[in-house]
Structure formats: structure tokens, C-alpha cells
């Protein structure tokens, strides 16, 4: 039954190839069917594909962490598919393939299978990145992403040498000590490109600032969420926090350098692209503290960031000129940017406060300093862009379609609601954290009480 989550989008993608024009209107119904199916699946089960038992065959694991991550990613896809104007001709089929591969990446319990799904995700991302005639940026992304895929494959093979198995639970039980550094390094190089760690994130501004609203809205939220989930699953559940010190240093460097780079940009979309790199670095450095509270705070911040980033990217790419003729869209944009800075009453304030609390409790004073420094820079450039967009008298502004205005307005009101009553997002973050930290339960779910 769990395999249907991957099979339904994949089959429908191939069925709708002849009807390229119509398929963008069928996309929401398929995603909705996926979400309904997800709620009817049994929790804490591992389904073995083709009848092969756990250490030998491929398993699809549905515990609380993967269930809530699937829910978040599918809702992001639903929101994107409700705005059919931003999808170019023929790209809705690629979106379906991307949905199938991200679902597989979240569900799988097998390291080579995760490599295959990662390559499918990457291929779909290259095609989405090439919309609005941005072929050169997409080509750079392809080169970097393929090298990362090669390193990830090497990491998978070395873990097979060290254990004699490809199953995540089996690797966490039987890994030889001498193989651990190599495997962790290779897997980290492979995952760092997609989750936007700075020395390997040179492709992000080229791809996100192409002028297409779809590319950053889906790659910067859904795919990033999936990749950060996979990274925490591998390094926290499987390796029990082995390599996390290195990830912490890289995350802090990414946060500070990307905020300074975002401050210097002269185009709004490039500034937002660097800001999304910085937020990914912040989330990874918080997650790598590896305590219950810090993981909860990190995922809560990631959820807030994804909600704000959808609004910011869609409006920034569709509105040309000033907000004076699009007042509703301007109000949603301002609310989302205030939440990103972390003003009180907005959702970002709650999550930044939680991050500060959790890092002080674990006796860490470098991360709060870096966070406050980056918040000051963020406030400077986002307020600058807000003033610039509200008060610039530009004649060539267009009307945006009503459904985009409505969806962004609902999302911005939801940000204020989360700022007052944060329980919904906190519950999701807590459940993801429970599934990730409880590796004994994961092993018994997969291998069946061995």
C-alpha cells in the first residue's frame, strides 16, 4: 500500500504525456488523492518490496518522521499546483515525476535506492531549472549535481563494503569503525549540493534568479525540506550523530557568508536566493547540535521559512514594478519578509526564540551570536527592498491573477496565526523529531525485533 504513494504520480505522469495542455489542471487532484491515501496508511510499518525480507530487499518505512515530512512536502506541492499560471507548458508532467521521486526519497530505507531517487529528483530539478530559457544556469547545476551524485554513490558502495548490506537499519547496527569517516564524508559531499551548503551551492543564484516563479518556489521549499530530512535521517538515525561537528561548522559559515552576500545583491531575486542558502545553513547548524529541543526548533524554523519563501518568491517573480497597483500582494510580501526577519507577533520570532533557547541550554554561545548578527543584516536588506518596492513610482506594473493573490494572502494570514498560536507547526516538528531521535524503534520497525 505504501508504494502507491510513489506509483500514483509516476503512472499519471506517463498517462498525461499526450495531453500536455490539460495536465496542469489535473495536477491538484492527483496530489489531493496522494494526501488522502497518506492518511489511510498504517503508521510504524515497514513494507518490503517484492516479498524480500528487510536486510536483503528494499523496504519503505513509514514512521512518524517520514509521515509528517510526506504531509508537509505534499501540501507544498498542492499549493504550487493550485497556481497553474506559474507553470510553463509541459512542466506539470515533470512536477509529477518530482513528486514521485521526493516521496520515494522520504520513504525509502535502503541507501542505494535513495541514490536512485536522488538522481531522479536531480534530473527533474534540472528540467524545472531550465524554464524561462535559463539553459546555461541549468547546465551548471547539472554538472555540479552529477558530481555530487557520483560521490553519493561512492558513499553507498563504501557502506556496503563496511557492512555487507545496503539497508539503513542494518548499516546502523553493523558498521565497521574504520569505514565510518570515508562513508560520512562521501555522503555529506553528495547531500551538500542539494541542501545548499555554501562551497557547493554556487548554482543556487543562477537557477533561482531566472525570473520563473515556479523554480525557486518548488526547489527552495519542497526539495530542500526533503534533502534536509534525508541528511538528518542518515547522520542522526543511522550514524548516531557521528559527523555532526563538521556539519555544524559548515552550517555556521554558510549562514554568515550567505547573509553578507545577500546584502550586497542589486537584484531582488538574487538576494532572496542567497537568503534561502543562509536559512538552510542555519537549520543545519541547529540540527547538528543533536538534542531533542534543538531538532524541534530547527524543524519549526524550516517550516516557517518554507511558508515565507513560497510567498516571497512567487510575488517577487510575478510583480514587476511597485506594489501600488497590487496592494494585497504587497501586504502579503511584507508580512512574509517580517516573519523571515523575526519581528514579534510573526511566526519567525517564535522559531528564532526557540533556537536561542535550545542552543543556550546545550551550552553553546557561538550559534546565538551568529544568529543575531545575521538577523541584523537580514533586517537591513529586507526593509530596504520593502521600502524600494512600495514607494518606487514605476508605471509598468501589471495585474496578477486572483488565485495567486488569494493563496499568498491565506498563507500570510496563516503566518500571523502561527505567530499567535504555534501549536500546529510545533506538533509537526515534535513528531519528526521523535521519529528521528528514536533509532532503536527504527531498527525494530525495519528488522522486526532482532
Amino acid at each position, binding site marked *: 500500500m505504501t508504494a502507491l504513494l510513489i506509483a500514483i504520480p509516476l503512472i499519471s505522469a506517463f498517462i498525461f504525456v499526450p495531453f500536455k495542455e490539460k495536465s496542469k489542471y489535473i495536477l491538484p487532484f492527483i496530489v489531493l488523492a496522494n494526501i488522502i491515501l497518506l492518511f489511510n496508511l498504517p503508521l510504524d510499518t515497514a513494507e518490503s518490496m517484492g516479498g524480500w525480507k528487510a536486510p536483503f530487499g528494499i523496504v519503505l518505512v513509514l514512521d512518524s518522521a517520514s509521515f509528517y515530512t510526506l504531509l508537509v512536502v505534499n501540501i507544498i506541492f498542492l499549493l504550487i499546483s493550485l497556481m497553474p499560471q506559474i507553470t510553463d507548458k509541459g512542466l506539470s508532467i515533470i512536477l509529477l515525476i518530482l513528486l514521485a521521486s521526493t516521496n520515494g526519497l522520504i520513504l525509502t530505507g535502503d541507501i542505494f535506492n535513495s541514490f536512485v531517487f536522488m538522481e531522479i529528483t536531480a534530473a527533474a530539478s534540472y528540467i524545472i531549472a531550465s524554464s524561462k530559457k535559463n*539553459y*546555461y544556469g541549468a*547546465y551548471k547545476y*547539472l*554538472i555540479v549535481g552529477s*558530481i555530487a551524485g557520483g560521490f553519493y554513490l561512492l558513499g553507498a*558502495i563504501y557502506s*556496503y563494503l563496511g557492512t555487507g548490506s545496503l539497508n539503513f537499519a542494518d548499516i546502523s547496527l553493523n558498521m565497521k569503525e574504520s569505514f565510518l569517516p570515508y562513508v560520512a564524508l562521501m555522503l555529506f559531499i553528495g547531500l551538500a549540493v542539494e541542501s545548499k551548503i555554501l562551497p557547493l551551492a554556487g548554482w543556487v543564484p543562477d537557477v533561482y534568479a531566472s525570473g520563473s516563479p515556479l523554480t525557486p518556489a518548488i526547489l527552495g521549499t519542497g526539495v530542500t525540506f526533503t534533502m534536509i530530512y534525508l541528511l538528518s535521517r542518515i547522520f542522526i538515525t543511522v550514524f548516531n550523530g557521528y559527523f555532526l561537528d563538521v556539519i555544524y561548522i559548515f552550517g555556521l559559515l554558510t549562514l554568515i557568508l550567505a547573509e553578507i552576500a545577500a546584502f550586497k545583491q542589486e537584484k531582488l531575486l538574487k538576494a532572496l536566493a542567497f537568503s534561502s542558502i543562509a536559512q538552510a545553513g542555519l537549520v543545519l547548524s541547529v540540527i547538528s547540535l543533536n538534542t531533542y529541543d534543538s531538532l524541534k526548533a530547527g524543524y519549526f524554523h524550516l517550516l516557517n521559512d518554507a511558508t515565507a519563501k513560497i510567498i516571497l518568491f512567487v510575488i517577487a517573480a510575478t510583480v514587476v514594478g511597485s506594489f501600488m497597483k497590487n496592494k494585497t500582494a504587497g501586504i502579503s510580501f511584507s508580512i512574509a519578509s517580517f516573519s523571515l526577519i523575526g519581528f514579534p507577533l510573526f511566526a519567525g520570532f517564535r522559531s528564532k526564540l526557540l533556537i536561542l533557547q535550545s542552543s543556550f541550554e546545550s551550552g553553546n554561545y557561538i550559534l546565538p551570536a551568529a544568529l543575531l548578527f545575521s538577523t541584523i543584516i537580514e533586517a537591513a536588506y529586507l526593509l530596504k527592498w520593502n521600502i524600494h518596492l512600495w514607494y518606487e513610482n514605476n508605471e509598468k506594473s501589471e495585474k496578477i491573477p486572483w488565485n495567486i493573490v488569494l493563496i499568498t494572502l491565506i498563507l500570510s494570514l496563516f503566518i500571523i496565526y502561527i505567530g499567535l498560536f504555534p501549536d500546529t507547526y510545533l506538533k509537526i516538528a515534535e513528531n519528526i523529531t521523535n521519529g528521528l531521535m528514536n533509532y532503536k524503534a527504527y531498527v525494530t520497525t525495519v528488522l522486526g525485533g532482532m
Partner: protein
Amino acid sequence: MVYYISFILIGVGIYGILTQKNLFKTLVSLTIIDTAINILIISLGYIEGSDVPIYSKYTQSANFVDPLPQALVLTAIVIGVGTLALGASLLIRVYEKYGTLDTEEIAVKEARK
């Protein structure tokens, strides 16, 4: 011995990606890296003096090399071919848009816009 060959090939591929100005040569370097990784995986599963992993009346002693890396390499080759085709189609589009595949000339034309 085979390990050294594949590591040298990975080095050659990364050197090519870092230094070539022609975009098509970077794509060729990418395939060199892919091939090197595949050779490495195949050589890791080899056991001295063993047979092909096919069960028949001539190989009843089940003295086989490890068949799992070979199955993995099949998948990796297919994925590499797909990536290569996608990269080549993107390069055709780049040539239609800029009229050249040289990185420096493309940067000049981008700056003029």
C-alpha cells in the same frame, strides 16, 4: 591495480571540469568520472579465481564473484546515460541561444544584456 586506474580517471575528469573553457568538454569529463566510478565498483566485487555468477551445470560449486556490485553498476550506467542525454540537449539549447559554447564569450554576452 584497477583501483589506481579508476582514481586516476576520477582525477582526470575533475581536472577537465575545472579547466576546460568549452562546455562540451566538461560534459565529456563528467562521463569520464561516471565510467571511473563504475570501474571501481565492479573491481570491488571481484574475488581471485572465481566464476561468473550464473548458476548452470558447469558452475555447480557456487564459487562466484560478488554479484551485487554488478547489479548496482547496471543501474548507475542507466542513470549516467540519462544525465548525459539531458546535458547534451541543454547544450543544444545553449548553442541556439548564444551561438557559441565558450564560457568566456557566453559571459560577455550575458553582461551585455
